[in-house]
């Protein structure tokens, strides 16, 4: 028996889009009714277009207590899935499975730990979810993008905790790749590092952090494909 309101979905895994929120020329968020969808900040979902035969995984962009379930999507030029997703209008159905994964932290750790979040592009999604879920968390968010407009919803973060690294223009706090910034940083030995983004950023950041003497167990990775 379906536990959801009938006007929201035909099947427990089908959700009606509430809004496609444009963030930049090629990035947007998909807002869905949260209903009873319980998740832990940092987890991801599998998203499919109803009637299609493919799905993709996206980190959840909204906080655990937000009204909506939201994911952040970058449209892949000439891609198969994301251009179709972007064209969907409010009211159309998508298929949601999950939540999946163990990225993120336990509530107790969020209260007492010291975190450095390292994200490239839309890899910021799980960190927005974490910061919205744990507003008191002690964090620093290093966000690497090409252009400053890709600093998705950056006004939501405490400006002293958010470092924007822009590689193609001099508009961020640091001009250059985030890995360049990372090399200049000193971190407390007990810091936990959470990395999310494309695999080449993760490889490079991992190597820099290992060179700085951090243990592999202090570094958690979520790769975007």
């Amino acid at each position: 028996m379906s536990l959801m309101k009938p006007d929201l979905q035909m099947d427990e895994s089908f959700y009606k889009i509430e809004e496609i929120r444009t963030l930049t020329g090629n990035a947007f968020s998909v807002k869905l009714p949260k209903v009873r969808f319980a998740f832990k900040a940092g987890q991801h979902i599998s998203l499919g277009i109803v009637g299609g035969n493919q799905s993709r995984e996206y980190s959840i962009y909204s906080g655990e207590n937000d009204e909506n379930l939201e994911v952040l999507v970058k449209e892949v030029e000439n891609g198969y899935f994301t251009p179709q997703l972007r064209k969907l209008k409010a009211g159309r159905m998508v298929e949601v499975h999950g939540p999946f994964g163990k990225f993120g932290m336990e509530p107790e750790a969020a209260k007492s730990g010291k975190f450095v979040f390292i994200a490239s592009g839309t890899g910021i999604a799980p960190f927005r979810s974490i910061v919205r879920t744990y507003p008191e968390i002690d964090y620093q968010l290093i966000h690497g993008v090409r252009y400053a407009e890709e600093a998705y919803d950056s006004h939501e973060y405490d400006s002293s905790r958010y470092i924007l690294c822009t590689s193609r223009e001099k508009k961020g706090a640091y001009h250059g790749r985030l890995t360049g910034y990372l090399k200049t940083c000193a971190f407390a030995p007990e810091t936990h590092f959470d990395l999310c983004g494309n695999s080449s950023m993760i490889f490079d950041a991992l190597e820099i952090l290992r060179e700085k003497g951090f243990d592999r167990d202090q570094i958690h990775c979520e790769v975007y494909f």
Partner: protein
Amino acid sequence: MKYHLITLGCQMNIADSERVSSVLEGMGYEKTDNEEDASLLGILACSVRQKPIDKVYNKIAQWNRWKNKRNLITFVSGCLLPADKEKFLKTFDLIFPMSELGQLPDMIREYGVVTPAGLKLPQPVMPKNEHIVSMWHIKPKYHSTYEAFVPIQNGCDKFCTFCAVPYTRGREVSRPSGEIIEEIQNLVHQGYKSITLLGQNVNSYGLDKHGREITFAGLLRQIGDFGNTSAHEFWVYFTSPHPQDMNREVIEVIASFDCLAKQIHLPMQSGDEKVLIKMNRRHSMDKYRRIVADIRELIPQATLFTDIIVGFTGEGEAEYQNTVKAFEEFKFNMAYIAMYSPRPGAASFRWEDEVSSEVKKDRLRSLSEVLKVCSHDYNESLLGNTLRVLVNGTDRKTGLSTGLTEGKIIVRLDRHDDTLMGKIVNVKITSASFLSMSGEVVHGK
């Protein structure tokens, strides 16, 4: 009224096929190995690689040609990707997920009735796996009298980039522990000697229940407790675990109970940190190393098996050499080494398959050589020892009986003796070679 069933792929499909047989034979069908004698033809498909899927396409084309001459019903189930499923809808008469196996008799009886609703309703991309529990209620018709596979978990939430299983099997669902224990007890009472717990992520058992079911370690402990009270000798294995959910407690439990086989299959996939990240394996080499250290400390006699993919996208020579080093470090007794092939539905299918097939073949060959050295060293260390061996077959070349040690090392016996089939006997190891040993049967326990 005969049926013919083709089972492709892994042990999960083999276990599923035992339940399919049970359902069909309950309807009055009789199994035949000759497909030309059957009026019901079925396939349990595997989507892990392209080759088995090609086989399904070839088979159904042949079966559909036969329909010009006689009445046939064809069905397909198992691991199916949405795109293949769509094509199979046009070629097979029946297509169903294993979670709906219980409805197969009705489907066969009502074959030919097509409801418009069934054609119009959108189907989820990811299969609904919650109903798999009812499939487990079907008593299987075991293919062997001494070796059985017991599914304890189904589905996968891990999303490794090379694999499409999350899209073919659906989410991780654990079978109730009471049912598992009951099935194992029945098997042991019937004299089964080798029981393998099955799951796509077998050691993620219970995690989907969020505290409402025992953990994998807890399940092994219950099986171990039963083993301690049983007069029968049996070995319980499990496959495949994921390193992410493997912990010291599981290894401690295996070390504590005689019936829990001292053989651990721990897929590594690659020995390179970066390739593991690209594969989205969600475990580091440090984590893998710690698990192996725990195994060596707590169960020094355990054999260690693994799965490896060579030639994955991003695996250059340096990355491959890290896998070679890992082989030398962990000294696997057996490794199932596969050359990477992009699978539709998996995330890596969208990437360039950049390692040439020649390089993949070279890596497969050279890694197999490293494996041979490691396994030979281990086997040689057993020379002169008397081991318990489960006799399970006959060597094709020599005609001599063969068996497996508790650690699943192949042993060729000094004789052919059908009366030993399915029994655990003492064998004194007299010679060792790559991946196998020879020995003479010693009487008395």
